[in-house]
């Protein structure tokens, strides 16, 4: 019983890390409907930048987010403006897959040249700390990641639902022609939205770098999980992202601890398939017409 409870706690905390990593993907893929295969690479890029700031100048990884986020925003906006915007509208969904995969490979290549393929971990003094609560261990960094994911996703929700920019994003996705007729600069909005999604990778990367060891190839392990979390949660549902990440974390952790780690990742995909068979729009997704 102790083993199972500890596994659930670990799963919830891991789910928090994944929710944070999936927050940008929720905006780009879930809301803007761009299949973004570069999000994992953006997270790893941010992890390297955070690691460099920490090792070179002692910048705390959580504080490094304030420096890295604007850079990631600029990179994301540039990718959208220069590479995705020119795509023909009819083929955009399919071609964005290839373009963002190329971006991921480009980031991986650049990181390999600069940092080589050795694994690294960002290790501030508090990285090993954990609380013992009723006989169970709760890692401080993972708990902070959980809180950060809730803050990030809450911020995105506020942005999308309570601001003019958010309405512009949703209008651009649902009907770009009508949005343009109403005065929305759709190209600019799309670039800003993509940039915003990329900026969230700063927080995700800083946390990933502390919790896991990473090298330039690590994004391959991430991307399928991030896409799956967004789909399971329901495209465009920010709350669904958190729930889906928790389902993934707990399912993987329980199976890894109680059965076999060989099946831990597969268990999540079983859940994903089961949910999609019964509820194709995902756990919290709405059936929308007109979405791209």
């Amino acid at each position, binding site marked *: 019983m*102790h083993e199972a409870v500890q596994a659930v706690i670990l799963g919830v905390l891991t789910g928090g890390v994944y929710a944070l990593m999936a927050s940008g993907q929720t905006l780009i893929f879930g809301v803007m409907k761009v299949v973004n295969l570069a999000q994992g690479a953006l997270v790893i890029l941010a992890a390297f930048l955070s690691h460099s700031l920490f090792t070179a100048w002692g910048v705390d990884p959580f504080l490094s987010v304030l420096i890295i986020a604007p850079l990631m925003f600029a990179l994301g906006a540039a990718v959208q403006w220069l590479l995705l915007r020119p795509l023909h509208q009819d083929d955009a969904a399919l071609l964005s897959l290839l373009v963002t995969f190329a971006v991921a490979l480009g980031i991986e290549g650049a990181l390999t040249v600069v940092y080589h393929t050795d694994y690294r971990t960002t290790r501030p003094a508090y990285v090993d700390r954990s609380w*013992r609560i009723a006989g169970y261990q709760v890692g401080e960094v993972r708990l902070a990641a959980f809180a950060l994911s809730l803050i990030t996703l809450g911020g995105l929700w506020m942005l999308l639902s309570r601001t003019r920019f958010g309405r512009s994003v949703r209008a651009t996705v649902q009907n770009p022609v009508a949005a343009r007729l109403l005065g929305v600069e759709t190209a600019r909005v799309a670039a800003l939205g993509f940039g915003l999604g990329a900026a969230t990778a700063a927080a995700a990367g800083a946390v990933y770098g502390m919790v896991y*060891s990473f*090298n330039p190839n690590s994004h391959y392990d991430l991307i399928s999980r991030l896409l799956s979390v967004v789909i399971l949660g329901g495209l465009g549902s920010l709350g669904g992202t958190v729930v889906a990440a928790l389902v993934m974390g707990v399912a993987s952790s329980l199976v890894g*601890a109680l059965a076999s*780690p*060989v099946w831990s990742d597969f268990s999540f995909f079983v859940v994903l398939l089961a949910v999609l068979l019964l509820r194709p729009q995902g756990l919290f997704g709405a059936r929308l017409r007109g979405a791209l």
Partner: protein
Amino acid sequence: MRHPYRHASSSRALFAAVAATAVLVACSSSAKPSSSASSHAPLKIGISLSLTGDFSDPGKSAERGYRLWADTVNAKGGILGRKVQLSIVDDTSSPTQVVGNYQNLITKDHVDLTFGPFSSLLTIPASQVAKRYGYAFLEPAGGGPKVFAQHLHNLFFVQPAPVVKQGDVFADYILSLPAARRPKTAAYPALDDPFASPIADEVRTRLEAAGIKTVYQQIYPAEITDLTPVVSAMAAKKPDLVVGGTQADDAYRMVKAMVQLKWAPKLLYLSNGANDPHNFPGNVGASNVDGIFSSGDWFPSSNTYGNAGFLSAYTRKYGGTAGTIDSTSAEAYSCGQLLEEVAAKTGKVDNATLISALHTGSWQTLEGNLSWNADGAANSSYVLVQWISGKMLPVYPAGRAQHAPVIAALPWGG
């Protein structure tokens, strides 16, 4: 009477015969080691290395080792008066490209000798090319079981033993302890990798035979990013000893998971990852390394043949500190040491002499004293190392040890 035509015809026939013979000789010599090079011609050694692609980092480490050896031996006047000239070409980490590279090195560049590439994946096809043309194949980094399953008489793996034997030295150490001090139970988590899980299996077989009970055994896939659930399940079984069949990343993750859970066994051995003096402390924390065992073929503090000279020459040529030297560089350098020794002992430096000489007796290298079985697997053993006071030190066997093994609680143990 001389018949002009006949004379001419005879001349043409003679010319044709000479030309045909020359072509045949040329063809023949193009597929044979050029042992007839003049005594002062450079000694050309062909090597294919992964300078780009997946293995580019260790490939470049091997290149540094080879080039350092060539510089060192040339500074001493070369081998038997011949300067060493390395022909190093990039195989892009591709098992297809490596075949073409060795074909070209042997048949077009007419190198005198060949040294091996990085990884078993590339060594297997490369060694077959060398075999076809009768070349000796001293290789620093292909120690997987399939390399030796080829039964190639010309191949020599320049490390102490096949990779799957890496953990045997730890089993030797445990079994050398008095029965009262031996662990009673053990856990064997291992990465699903041909260079990881077989190592743990070998140790488990020996420890089980000695009565140490296995309480946990688990193979985990390379894709698993978080080993905390595995460690949590293992901790519930309360093993005295954990033998991890690990590579780099999963070794870091395993230690980090133990630290997070504040659980530590009495003894912890990790086959790889923990034997990296540069990256291991950086990934798991310098304060978390003490007490952890690992094993390997070469370490900066090794007291093996030529190691002091190697360390000073390396840091002089490439900078950095001894602690940052990749063992692959030492393995590559050792290939050159063997060549020097065979030449000094036999007065020859051709492939046939190399093959027959290396199959006889024992030879000194940075990797220790090496001898080989018929399939090219070295008959020695790895060195057991342990992190003690923040330093990774050889602790077993006694002949290679610089410190006695220490059995003490791991730093994060609850």
